[in-house]
């Protein structure tokens, strides 16, 4: 299988001498769900924003579908969608209008746009509520709308920062199911992030554990649990941190 994302030594410093991301390297295969996990401030959002071409790396590079985020950001944007952490949507628009607007940014073709919108409407499961103003939506509904818009164009790579944070159990569960199903059915790849390590076990195929700007280790979930003799990812994280401190 080909690699959709290859991250090579990506670094970012916002202030002098402080690296929010320090030589981060990993890769995501086609159809794979990869999750960056780690506590708040670990550098997940920073890494994700660099890959999404929103902020400029101070070192390293990443290739999305073979295109460099530094020299070909426009090409990269054609192959990704990005769902920011705690993102909102335009409150004065209806859900439908929002989908129309976003579809219009990806294609100039009316029919293609319609296909995108239909797909999103089906995935988000909001039904008639799509004709209501987004201002009247709950958090969960907004997240479902945004998620459906992030996958409606079937990008090579869908990037979602903290996809389920701030949602109640039922909504979080639904979102996780949606992601899993989409990856299986469409062959899209997902790059997720989460500070909730227990939850991410249920969604991702592989994870990368980050703390303090460093990507400590990557691997399949079972593989990591075995390697660190841990019952869950939280324990894996604990042991990884201890191991690195000892070293």
């Amino acid at each position, binding site marked *: 299988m080909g690699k959709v994302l290859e991250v090579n030594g990506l670094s970012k410093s916002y202030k002098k001498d402080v690296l929010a991301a320090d030589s981060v390297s990993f890769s995501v295969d086609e159809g794979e769900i990869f999750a960056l996990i780690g506590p708040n401030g670990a550098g997940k959002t920073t890494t994700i924003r660099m890959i999404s071409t*929103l902020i400029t790396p101070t070192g390293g590079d990443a290739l999305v579908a073979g295109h460099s985020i530094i020299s070909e950001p426009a090409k990269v944007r054609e192959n990704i969608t990005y769902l920011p952490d705690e993102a909102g949507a335009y409150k*004065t628009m209806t859900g439908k209008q929002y989908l129309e607007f976003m579809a219009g940014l990806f294609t100039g073709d009316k029919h293609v746009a319609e296909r995108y919108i239909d797909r999103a409407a089906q995935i988000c499961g909001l039904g008639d509520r799509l004709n209501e103003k987004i201002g009247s939506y709950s958090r969960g509904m907004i997240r479902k709308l945004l998620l459906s818009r992030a996958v409606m164009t079937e990008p090579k790579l869908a990037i979602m920062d903290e996809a389920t944070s701030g949602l109640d159990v039922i909504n979080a569960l639904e979102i996780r199911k949606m992601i899993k199903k989409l990856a299986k059915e469409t062959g899209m790849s997902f790059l997720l992030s989460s500070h909730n390590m227990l939850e991410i076990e249920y969604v991702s195929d592989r994870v990368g554990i980050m703390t303090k700007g460093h990507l400590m280790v990557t691997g399949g979930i079972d593989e990591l649990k075995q390697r660190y003799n841990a019952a869950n990812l939280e324990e894996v994280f604990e042991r990884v941190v201890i191991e690195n401190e000892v070293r």
Partner: protein
Amino acid sequence: MRFGNLLKKELRELITPQALVSMGAMLLLFIFLGQMLGDFTDSMEDISSATICVQDKTAFVDDILASLKEENIEVNQVELTSEDYAAELDRLELDNLVIIPAGFTDSVLVNKEPASLKIVSKVAGGGMISTAQTMSATEVIDAIEKAAEDSILLESYGITPEEIERIKAPVNTTEISVLNGKSAEVATEELSAVLMMQSMVVPIALFFMVMMASQMIMTAISTEKIDKTLETLLSTPVSRLSILGAKMLAAVISALLNAVVMMIGMVFYVGGMLGSAGEEMMNMAVAGQEVSASADGVMSAMEAMGELGMSISVGSYVLFGIQIFISVMIALAISLLLGAMATDIKSVQTLTMPIMLVTMIPFFVTMFADLNTMSTVPKLIMYAIPFTHAYTAMNNLVFGHTALFWGGLVYQLVFFAVCMFLAVRLFTTDKIFTMSYQTGAGKGKKGLIKQ
């Protein structure tokens, strides 16, 4: 195509039903206020009728009443049944009443002493309308006095009305206004009135435009940033310049719409307020008609302005239009930069202040003071504010201060270029996401993301 999509979205955000409703409400308010004040002004001018009780029935008094009619005052005669004025006013349902008492004619013509005249008015409260009523009665008295005066001059001294006219206006003045070494036969006051209209209306419109445009774009950009819709938008495959362009264009369009509504409101307001007099003034300012009902041969203000080299050519209007456009664009660019720094809704309000100040200060200063007569430091400060040049542009063009105008325009262009450069940089680099954190140190030397 994609730009159209972006523009549509921005316009939908700015021109909401609520915005339209408040615009409409504003318009109605202006019209209503203008009408109300206009009614008042009209009632003040309205002395077309007077109620008079004549207790001295002589040919002399009849003459006076006839001359009142000549002045277009409709005389309504009543009889009193008692000396209880309050009761009489109530009975006759009047607010005021002029009484010509018995012996009025004898006092004037025979005894040659001041004759007495009575005016009875109801005090109807402290409002302006009641003052106006008393004033209209006073005008009637003035007319009676004048008629009495003319009669005395004719009866006692044999002076005819023609002679009276000549005596009262023995001097005929020709006013000549001089400007920039040219002169024209027109009253300086009349010229000033036209100039006032010209140099006031446009700055007010500009002022509103700038305020509206910057508020709108600031809110637009900061809510996008706070709701993180901006991140989503900037990660899509549309050129960032078109995102920026759509935002600015939408703000210009809705600012223009607002300004037009505001101007219509103002015209109604001023027009309504001044009543018929106001309409005349508006017409003359707009269409260049004669300033007043001045006698033939006297130049109209507009003609005079042409003679004095003050008239505004089409070219000047174009230049002035460019000035205004650049001013609005500068306001937009600054607001964009400020709005991008906002991290929450509250800080948006704080960030609006600087824009308000730099638009308001030159607006009022140029309205009440002449920059050229200011001392150097305040003058330089005023000139450093780009909007000053927009407010003074019209006068600079009219009075032929070409160097000042062009200097101002060039300064504005440079200022705009710098602001735009920063705005584009903001959108094409990661500045927009990192700026609010930065303290100023350690900026620069970052690799740019190519568009």
